[in-house]
C-alpha cells in the first residue's frame, strides 16, 4: 500500500516537474487573452501598433513582441538557459547590441550590453524608446533607437551617435538584436529564411551538432577591395572548379515560428552595403538558432610590402570608420502570413510603398539573346570569330515569327567593335563584320515596331588590359594593389575594373552616341551586381560611395533610355524594366535544408523576371518545371554559327548555342510557358507550399493554382494527380 502511494507520488512529482520544465522551455503562445498585461516576463510595455505590442526590459534592453490577436510572441533574447553557454555567449545571447572590437591586429574582442560596464540612458518615446549606450571600459558608444509602427519594428543607430573615444579599441562590427526570434534546438517549429541565391530555408529542427558553421555572407557579395586571403583550389592547379557561391541580392533574412504562427522578415535598410547576413542553426557553437545582420564598421586587411606577394606583409585596420546610419526593420507576420511566402509578399509591399517597385509591363516574353562576335588568337594579335550578324538576327526573328513566337526580348552581346571582350564600350560602333551602325539601329527600331524588346549589352565595369591603356581610372584595392580578375581563359587572361566616375563618363558618352544613332535601349551588366571598396589617388572609397555613384549613373541613364539590368542588386531594382538572370538555385550549403523561390515570389507579377540561360542546363525537364514554379521567363543564348567556332575564344564556355539546334526548343518553351503565364497575367504569387508528397503548390492572387511534381512517381494533391516530372494548372 505504502509502496503504491510512494509510486503514485513519484509519478505525480515527475509529471509536474516535466510539465513545468516543458513550460519553461516552450514559451511561445501567451494564451489568447483579451487584454494585454502592462508587464510580461519581466518586460515592460513600451509601444504598440495595430496588431503587435512591444515589451522591453530596461535593464538588458531585450524585447518581446506579442501578437495581440493570437497571443503568439517572439523574444530578442534567450529565455531558456541550457546551462552550457559560457559567460561571453550568454552575454551575447541576451544583448540588444553586440560589438566586436579591434585592438591592434585582433578583431575578436567582444562587447555587449549584458556583460560589460556600460552607462545607459533610456528615454521612452511615443513609438518606443531611445537608449544611449557607452562602454566605459572600451570608450565606445552609440545610441539605439527602437520604434514600433504598423510597418514594423525599426531598430536604428544613427551614424553620428557612434563614438570611438579611446585609442586602444575601435569598433569592428555591430549587430543589433542578433537573437531576435531565437529558439533552443527544435523547441520551435519553423525555419530561418536565408537570402542565398533565390532563397533557402534552414529548418529549426535539432541539427545534432552536425554543422560547424552556419550561413554567413556579405549582402551584395564579398568586397574585392579587401584581400580575402583565400586561396582558390584549382583543378590541376589551373581550372576553377568550385563555383562562386550565389550572391545575396536582397538585404533580407527572416525567422518563422510556423507552429506559433508568428514570423518576421528583417530588411536591412541602412548600412546594407557593409553588412553580412548570419544565419546560424543550433549546433554551431551553441544550441540556439539565430539570424542577424552584422554591420562592418572597420575591417582588417593585408598590406603587402613587396611586389612578390609571398615575401612580406602587414596587417592593418581601415583607418576611417565607414559612415552610414545602421537600420534594420523587422516586419512581423502572423498566422497564414507567418511563412516564407508571407515574407516575400511583405517585402514586395514594402518595396512598392518605398516606390522601388513600380507597375511594369510583365507580359510573357521569351528571352533570346545573341552573341555577335568574339576574338581568337592569330599570328599577330587576334582575329574575329563572327557568330551572329545583324542580318542573321533578322532571319532568326523571321523564322521565329513563322513558328508563331513573336513575344520576344533580346539582349545583344558582343555587338561592339572588337567583340564581346573588347571593353569598355564608349562608342556606338558595331563590329564591321557584324553589321554597320545604321543596320543595327534599323534592326533595333524594326524589332521595336514589331513589339520585340531589344537591348544592347554593355558591361560597364570591366576593361580589357590587352586592348586598352589601364594606367588610370582603374580599381585598386584598399591595400593600393590593382585588382585583377582572372578569367582562366587563354585569349584574354585578365580583366581590370574601372572606377565608378570613369564608368559614368564612358557610359554617358556611349549613351549619347547611341541616342544620336537612334538607339535608346541598353542592358547594363558588371556594375549592377558588383560593389567594392577601392582606393584612388590616395583616397579610400567605401561600398556606400560606390553604390551611391552607381545609383546616380544608372538613374541618369534610366531617365532617357529603356534600361534593363543583369542580376541587379536590390538597391537598383527601381531602375530596371526586367530582372535578368534570376538564380533558380542556391549555393548548396550543407546547412541549408531546402530551396525556396523567395525572390521570384517577391517579383512575380510586378517585374518580368528572366532565367539564366536554358542552353547550359543539364537537366532540361527539371529546369523547365522550375520556370513554371517560379513564374520565370526562359532565356536562350543564341548564335547563328555553331558554337564549336568559339573553342579558341574566351567564350568557350558557350558550348551550345546554335539557332538550328535551339529553334524547336524556343518554340516549345514559348508555347508552353506563354499559356501558363497568360493565366497568371498580372497576378502575384500569394502562397507557395511544399506538400508532404513532394508536390509544390503555387497559389496566385487571382486564384490560379499550379501544381508541380518533381518526384519520380505520380503524386496526388488536392484531388488531382500530377505525373512524375510534370505540372498541372488549375483555375
Amino acid at each position, binding site marked *: 500500500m505504502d509502496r503504491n502511494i510512494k509510486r503514485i507520488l513519484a509519478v505525480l512529482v515527475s509529471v509536474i516537474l516535466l510539465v513545468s520544465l516543458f513550460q519553461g522551455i516552450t514559451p511561445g503562445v501567451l494564451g489568447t487573452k483579451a487584454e494585454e498585461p502592462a508587464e510580461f516576463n519581466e518586460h515592460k510595455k513600451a509601444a504598440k501598433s495595430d496588431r503587435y505590442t512591444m515589451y522591453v526590459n530596461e535593464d538588458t534592453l531585450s524585447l518581446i513582441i506579442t501578437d495581440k490577436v493570437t497571443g503568439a510572441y517572439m523574444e530578442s533574447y534567450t529565455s531558456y538557459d541550457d546551462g552550457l553557454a559560457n559567460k561571453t555567449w550568454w552575454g551575447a545571447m541576451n544583448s540588444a547590441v553586440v560589438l566586436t572590437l579591434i585592438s591592434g591586429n585582433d578583431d575578436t574582442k567582444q562587447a555587449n550590453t549584458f556583460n560589460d560596464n556600460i552607462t545607459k540612458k533610456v528615454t521612452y518615446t511615443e513609438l518606443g524608446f531611445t537608449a544611449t549606450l557607452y562602454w566605459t571600459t572600451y570608450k565606445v558608444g552609440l545610441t539605439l533607437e527602437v520604434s514600433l509602427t504598423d510597418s514594423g519594428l525599426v531598430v536604428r543607430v544613427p551614424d553620428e551617435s557612434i563614438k570611438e573615444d579611446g585609442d586602444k579599441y575601435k569598433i569592428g562590427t555591430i549587430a543589433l538584436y542578433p537573437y531576435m526570434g531565437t529558439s533552443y534546438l527544435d523547441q520551435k517549429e519553423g525555419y530561418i529564411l536565408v537570402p542565398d541565391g533565390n532563397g533557402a530555408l534552414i529548418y529549426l529542427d535539432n541539427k545534432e551538432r552536425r554543422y560547424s558553421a552556419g550561413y554567413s555572407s556579405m549582402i551584395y557579395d564579398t568586397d574585392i577591395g579587401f584581400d580575402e586571403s583565400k586561396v582558390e583550389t584549382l583543378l590541376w592547379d589551373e581550372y576553377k572548379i*568550385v563555383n562562386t557561391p550565389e550572391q545575396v541580392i536582397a538585404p533580407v533574412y527572416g525567422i518563422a515560428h510556423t507552429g506559433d504562427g508568428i514570423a518576421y522578415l528583417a530588411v536591412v535598410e541602412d548600412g546594407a552595403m557593409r553588412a553580412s547576413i548570419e544565419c546560424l542553426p543550433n549546433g554551431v557553437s551553441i544550441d540556439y538558432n539565430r539570424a542577424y545582420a552584422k554591420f562592418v564598421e572597420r575591417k582588417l586587411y593585408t598590406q603587402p610590402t613587396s611586389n612578390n606577394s609571398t615575401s612580406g606583409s602587414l596587417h592593418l585596420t581601415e583607418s576611417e570608420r565607414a559612415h552610414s546610419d545602421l537600420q534594420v526593420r523587422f516586419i512581423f507576420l502572423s498566422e497564414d502570413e507567418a511563412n516564407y511566402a508571407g515574407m516575400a509578399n511583405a517585402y514586395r509591399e514594402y518595396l512598392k510603398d518605398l516606390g522601388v517597385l513600380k507597375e511594369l509591363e510583365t507580359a510573357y516574353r521569351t528571352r533570346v539573346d545573341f552573341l555577335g562576335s568574339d576574338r581568337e588568337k592569330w599570328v599577330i594579335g587576334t582575329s574575329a570569330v563572327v557568330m551572329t550578324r545583324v542580318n542573321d538576327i533578322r532571319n532568326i526573328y523571321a523564322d521565329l515569327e513563322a513558328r508563331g513566337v513573336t513575344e520576344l526580348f533580346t539582349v545583344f552581346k558582343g555587338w561592339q567593335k572588337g567583340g564581346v571582350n573588347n571593353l569598355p564600350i564608349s562608342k556606338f560602333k558595331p563590329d564591321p563584320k557584324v553589321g554597320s551602325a545604321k543596320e543595327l539601329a534599323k534592326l533595333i527600331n524594326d524589332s521595336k515596331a514589331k513589339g520585340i524588346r531589344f537591348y544592347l549589352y554593355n558591361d560597364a565595369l570591366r576593361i580589357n588590359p590587352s586592348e586598352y591603356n589601364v594606367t588610370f581610372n582603374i580599381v585598386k584595392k584598399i591595400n593600393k594593389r590593382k585588382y585583377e580578375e582572372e578569367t582562366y581563359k587563354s585569349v584574354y587572361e585578365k580583366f581590370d575594373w574601372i572606377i565608378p566616375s570613369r564608368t559614368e563618363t564612358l557610359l554617358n558618352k556611349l549613351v549619347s552616341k547611341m541616342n544620336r544613332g537612334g538607339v535608346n535601349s541598353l542592358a547594363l551588366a558588371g556594375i549592377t551586381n558588383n560593389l567594392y571598396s577601392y582606393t584612388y589617388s590616395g583616397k579610400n572609397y567605401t561600398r556606400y560611395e560606390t553604390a551611391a555613384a552607381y545609383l546616380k549613373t544608372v538613374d541618369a541613364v534610366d531617365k532617357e533610355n529603356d534600361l534593363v539590368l543583369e542580376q541587379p542588386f536590390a538597391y537598383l531594382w527601381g531602375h530596371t524594366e526586367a530582372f535578368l538572370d534570376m538564380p533558380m538555385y542556391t549555393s548548396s550549403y550543407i546547412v541549408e535544408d531546402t530551396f525556396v523561390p523567395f525572390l521570384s515570389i517577391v517579383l512575380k507579377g510586378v517585374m518580368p523576371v528572366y532565367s539564366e540561360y536554358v542552353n547550359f542546363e543539364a537537366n532540361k525537364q*527539371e529546369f523547365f518545371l522550375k520556370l513554371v514554379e517560379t513564374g520565370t521567363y526562359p532565356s536562350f543564348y543564341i548564335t547563328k554559327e555553331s558554337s564549336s567556332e568559339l573553342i579558341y575564344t574566351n567564350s568557350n564556355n558557350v558550348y551550345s548555342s546554335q539557332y538550328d539546334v535551339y529553334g524547336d526548343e524556343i518554340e516549345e518553351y514559348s508555347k508552353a510557358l506563354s499559356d501558363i503565364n497568360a493565366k497568371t497575367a498580372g497576378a502575384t504569387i500569394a502562397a507557395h507550399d511544399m506538400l508532404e508528397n513532394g508536390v509544390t503548390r503555387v497559389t496566385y492572387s487571382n486564384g490560379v493554382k499550379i501544381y508541380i511534381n518533381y518526384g519520380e512517381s505520380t503524386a496526388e494533391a488536392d484531388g488531382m494527380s500530377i505525373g512524375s516530372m510534370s505540372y498541372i494548372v488549375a483555375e
Partner: protein
Amino acid sequence: MKKRTFAVSLISMVLALLLAFIGFAEPAAVRGDTPYKTYTVDGYGSTIETQTAYLPYTTITKIGEESLKGPTDFTLLDDGTIYILDSGNKRVVVSSPEGDLIKVFGQGTLMSPRGIFVTEDRTCYVADRDAKAIFVFDPEGNLIKTYGKPDSAIYGENQVFMPLKLVVNSFGTMYVVCESNTNGIVEISPVEGGTFLGYFGTNNTRASLWTIIWRAILTDEQRAKQLSNLPATPDNLAIDDKGVIYTVTRGEKNEALKRLNIAGVNMITPQTYEDLPAAVAVGNHDNAFVAAQSGYIYEYNNDGDLLFVFGGADDGQQRIGLSTKVEAIQIGKDDKIYVLDSDKAQIQVYKPTEFTDHLHEALYLFSKGRYTESKKPLSTVLEMNNLFDYANLAMAKALYKEGDYNGALRYSKLAKDLDTYSDSFWEIRAAWLKRNLTAAVLIIVAFVILVAVLRFLDKKYGILKAPKKLLSKVKEFKLVKQLGYVFYFMRHPIEGCYGIRHQEKVSLLSSNILLALMILVFIINKYFCGFLVKTVREGSFDIASDIGIILVALFLVVGCNYLMCTINDGEGKLKHIYCSFIYGFGPYLCFTPVIFLLSHVVTDNERFFVDFGRLFMLAWVAVLIFIAVKEINNYNVKETIKIILLTAFTILIVSLLAFIIYVLWSQVFDFLQQIPREVVYKIGS
C-alpha cells in the same frame, strides 16, 4: 568493386533504371545546381567546361539510428544494399536500399579494418591491417574463415601481411592490396585455407634520365645508400564481372589508373590522370570512375579517355557535393555514384543528369558496334555541347563507318583523332585522285610539252633571251650572289667555309636576311602545316616567344662557341662563326617548304616521307655545322668534338649564371622596395 551482371541489352538497362527508383528515399529538396563545375578534356589536352554531369542527390549520414565513425570502405550491391566498413567503430554496418539498418556485425573480431568486399551471395570479406588478416563473414554476419599471412616462400619471409583493400572474383580468388608490399597485388586462392598464387599487376619502377646518369656516376657503395627505387604499391582496386581488375596508384602519372586483364597486363594509359587517386570503381557502360582523395571524381571510357571530371575539395565552405577526404567510390546499377568521405563520415550520392544519360546511351551503343544507332544520342550530346570531345570522336568514327568522310574529317579534327582523320583524309584524297587523275595527267603532259616547246623555240629563235638576261643581271647583284651562296655552301661546306673566311662570299646582311627567312619559314611551318603533323593546337599562336627563343638560342650558341674558340686557338672571327652557322642551316630553309607542302597531302601511311625528310634535313644541318666549326677555326676532328662539348657546357654555365643573377637582383630590388613601403605604412597607420 563488386561483381555485377552486365546489362546485355537496353531493356535490362531500363530495368536497372526502374530499380533505381526503388532506391533511397527522395532527398528533401530538388537540388538543381551544383557547387562545382564539370570539365572534359579534348584531344589537345585542353580542358573545356561542360554541362553538369552529376548532381548531388542525397547524403547518407546515418543508417537507421547508427552513426558512422571514420568509415574507410563500402560495397554497394546490385539491389542497393550497402555494406559500410565503419572502421572507427570496428564493425560492418549493413543498410537496406531504403536506408534502414539491416544488421551490424564484426565487433570484437575487427581491429583496424580498412577494406571490404561483398560478393553477390553476400559473403563479406574484410581486410584488417592490424589483425594482419582477412576475415570472411557469412551472410548472417558469422565469422566463417580467417586468412593470415601466406606461408609460401615466394611471398617473402620478411614480408609482413597488412591487407588494406581487396576484391574477390567469381572463383573466390582474393586480390589484396597490402601496406608496404611493393611486389604488387597479393593473389590468394581460397583452396586449402588460402594458397598464395603470386603477385599480380606490379607497377613499373621509374627511373628518370637524371637517376640513370646519377647511378652511372655513383660507386656501388654509394648506390646502396641511395633510396631504393621500388615500384609504387597500388592504393586501391576494383573488379568487373569479367574479372578484369582496375587499380589506382598515387604518383604514377598516366599509369595512375590501370586496367589489368587476367594476365596482369595493363590495357589503358589515360592521358588525363589524378595524382592522388583514392579509389576506383567500374561503371555499367564499360566506363570506370576514379575518385581523388581531394574529392575530384573522374569518369573514363573504355579507352581510358576522360569523359568528365567534377567535384572538388571543401575548403571550409561546407557545400553539398564537395568532399574532405574521399576513401571509396561505388557505382549503382542506376549509374548513381556513391562516394564515401571518411572525414565527414558520410556517403554522398550523385545522380547523372539527362546529358550524362544520353552520353551513356551513346557509349553503350558505340561499344557494341551499333554506330548508326549511336548517332542519335551522340547528336543530342553534341547539340547540348558542341565541344564535347568524346562525342566528336565517336561521331567521327560513326560517320567514317558510314562513309561520310567529309563529316568524319570535320569531327575528327575537332577531337584531334589523328587516326580517323588520316583514314578519312585518305578516302577523300583517293576519291579526289580518282576524279581528277586524268585531268592531272593531262596537265602534267601539257606542262612537259610546253617546256619542251619553249626550249625548242628558245634554241631556234631565242625568245627567252630577254628574261634570261634579266635573270643573269639580277644574279650579278652582290647581295643576291651572297644569298645564293647558301646553295653552294650546302653542297661544298669545306670550300664554302673558305669562301666565308677569305673571300668575303657572304655578308652580315645576307646572313641576317637568311635568318629572317628561316624564322618566317619556321613560323609558317609550325602554325600552318598539315593537321596530322602539327605539334601545336589549332588556334594557338605565340609568335613573340617563338622568335625570342630562336634568337636567344642562336645568341647563346654563337656567343659561347666564339668564347670557347678564342681560348682554344680557334682562328674564326665572330662574324664568320655567325655567318657559317646561318649558312649551315641552309638545308632547313630549302627543305622545310617541301615538307610543309607534303604535310598537307600525306596521311598516316605516307607520313614516313615527312618524318624521313625532316630527319634527313636535320642530319645534313648537323654535318654542315660540324664542318663549319672545324673549318672556320681550322681545327682537326678531335678538336672540333672537344670544342662542341665545351660549347655545350658553356651554354649550361651561362644559363645558370643568368638565372642566379636574375634571382639575386630581383631579391635585392624587392628588398629595396620593401623598406620605404614598410616605413610608410607603419607611420601611416
